[in-house]
């Protein structure tokens, strides 16, 4: 299966939408000193696909998506994003980061900039967009995440849920081809989780390609095209939400689901 994925990814430009893989990983390993965080990961994300990654903590979920935009450097194997292979070449890395948006658990908004400036920063500085155009784009995105009235505030003046929605808008401003979500609701108070999940769902409905690491199983069932279950740095099982949640084949998956549901 893995070599198939690989070919699909490399002949990007001519291919039909259905067999284009935006992200393809083949035989990826990641080690932190002695510890193997990722072992032989073979994985693909198709265009407009929503993949949800679940698994116990320490299973390598975050490491997996952080490898996709090179926040972590993989030690072995190949990662191809939108037809470009991740190598040590800085230009390649920059290209890939322009096409992948990432939303973090702890928001990581820039505290010294207003909400509007947070969102307009990357389009201006990376894409060279004029200030007025970037700010118009930022306002439009704030409208989309339903907080247009917060544009001139500073991040510290916003609630956690609002901050995370600003972070989503900030990533979208680069018009990425794929969005990576690293536990986007884990740092939120319970009453704010839904407003963020709704924003992500809306994105999924609009056809955004996404990889979401989450502990929100309800969300996974509802939104995912495919669910990936990881444990001990390996992908244990991949399937549709009903396959994974209603009918898990692997013992480790069954155990994990029994614990959390």
């Amino acid at each position, binding site marked *: 299966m893995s070599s198939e994925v690989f070919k699909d990814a490399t002949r990007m430009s001519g291919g039909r939408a259905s067999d284009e893989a935006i992200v393809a990983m083949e035989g990826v390993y990641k080690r932190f000193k002695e510890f193997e965080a990722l072992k032989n990961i073979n994985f693909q994300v198709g265009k407009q696909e929503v993949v949800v990654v679940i698994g116990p903590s320490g299973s390598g979920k975050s490491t997996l998506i952080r490898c996709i935009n090179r*926040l972590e450097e993989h030690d072995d194997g190949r990662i191809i994003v939108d037809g470009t292979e991740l190598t040590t070449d800085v230009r390649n890395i920059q290209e890939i980061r322009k096409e992948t948006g990432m939303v973090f658990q*702890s928001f*990581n908004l*820039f505290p*010294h900039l207003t909400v509007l400036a947070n969102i307009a920063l*990357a389009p201006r500085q*990376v894409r060279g967009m004029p200030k007025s155009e970037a700010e118009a784009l930022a306002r439009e995105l704030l409208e989309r995440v339903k907080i247009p009235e917060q544009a001139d505030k500073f991040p510290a003046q916003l609630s956690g849920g609002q901050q995370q929605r600003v972070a989503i808008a900030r990533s979208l401003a*680069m018009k990425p081809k794929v969005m990576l979500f690293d536990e986007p609701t884990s740092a939120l108070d319970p009453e704010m989780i839904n407003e963020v999940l709704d924003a992500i769902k809306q994105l999924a409905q609009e056809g955004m390609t996404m990889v979401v690491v989450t502990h929100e199983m309800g969300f996974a069932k509802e939104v995912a095209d495919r669910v990936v279950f990881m444990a001990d740095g390996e992908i244990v099982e991949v399937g549709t939400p009903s396959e994974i949640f209603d009918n898990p084949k692997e013992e480790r998956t069954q155990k994990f689901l029994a614990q959390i549901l």
Partner: protein
Amino acid sequence: MITWLRRNLFRTWWDSIMTVVFGYVGLWVIWTVIEFVFVTGRWEIIQVNLKLLLVGRFPDELMWLVGASLTALAFWVAAVAGGSKIDLNNVQTIPQRLFDYTRRFGLIVALAALLIFLAADIAALLLAFQVLGAVVVGRLVGLARRKVSVLGAIPSIIWHPMLGSPAIALVLVTLMESTLEEWGGFLINFYMAIISIVLCFPLGVLLALGRRSSFPIIRLVTTTYIELIRGAPLFVLLLLAGVALEFFIPPSIAPDAIFRGVTVFTLFTAAYLAEIVRGGLQSIPKGQTEAGKALGLSTTKITYLITMPQALRNVIPAQIGQFISLFKDTTLAGAALNILDVLNVGTAITKQQDFLGQGLIYEALAFVALLFWVGSYVMSRESQRLEKRLGVGVR
């Protein structure tokens, strides 16, 4: 009133003793100072030598240049401050504003009044009004930039140097028209401090970045530099700059003492500043860099758009502390490099024939200390204001 006294000063017998003892000591100190200032102090030594203390043997016919450059400098500062976009508090009432202005500028105005009184010269009064006018005009220009969109569109990197160019030009003209040996007094301390602060800031930031560089050679060089400079007493470095340069450079083209002083102050303060800035950079969470990377920003842009602005803002108190100490340390240059700075003038005038052997060193030193204290106080106040404006600790 009486209940307040009871509660705060005389609650127990021990409190009462402390209140009486410290109250007595405090009153005694205040009385002694008042007595010195108004009764026993013989201030004619300051009055007679006021010009020497402030500008040394600066030629009279060039004094207008000093006044003009001070005016241009005041205009620049007022324009930059008046044009900053964040207002501390819009709902201030007029009495509150007056109180705020008094706290900020009262001391400077009082010092200016004292100097004009001592000088008893109409030119000094005119200069004061000239500077005041420059501040008002500067503030209006700054405000205009906020209100008029055409001016607001000019990028800061062009706007600020443009406003500052008259000041810089006038200082340069003053330097060219006079010889450095003619400079003296507080003027020297003031300009040495300002020039060193302006020069050491970028150098300190670069050193801080160098020490965090991923290139081992750059790290080694900057770390060695910082540790060597920080390991030596400032006074020793100043003395070295005075004598050791002759080993390398023939005396005929050896730089002037003031130039050496500025060089040492710049290099010395930059090393300390580098460590302050590095501390600031370390306080920025890793997530900030990661967010910048994830958006596709280059490492350089992440540094100057994201981490460095936050780091510099976090270390404002330490930076200003370093600048204040640099300002006061300029008196060391007087001693080490034989520059006729305000302290040297202050001790020299007590040896004039009219004042010799009369124990007037107290008056001279008190006046020198007053000049530095007012300068340091203003720097410290304005830095607190800057912190509030930038919202340190609020985010």
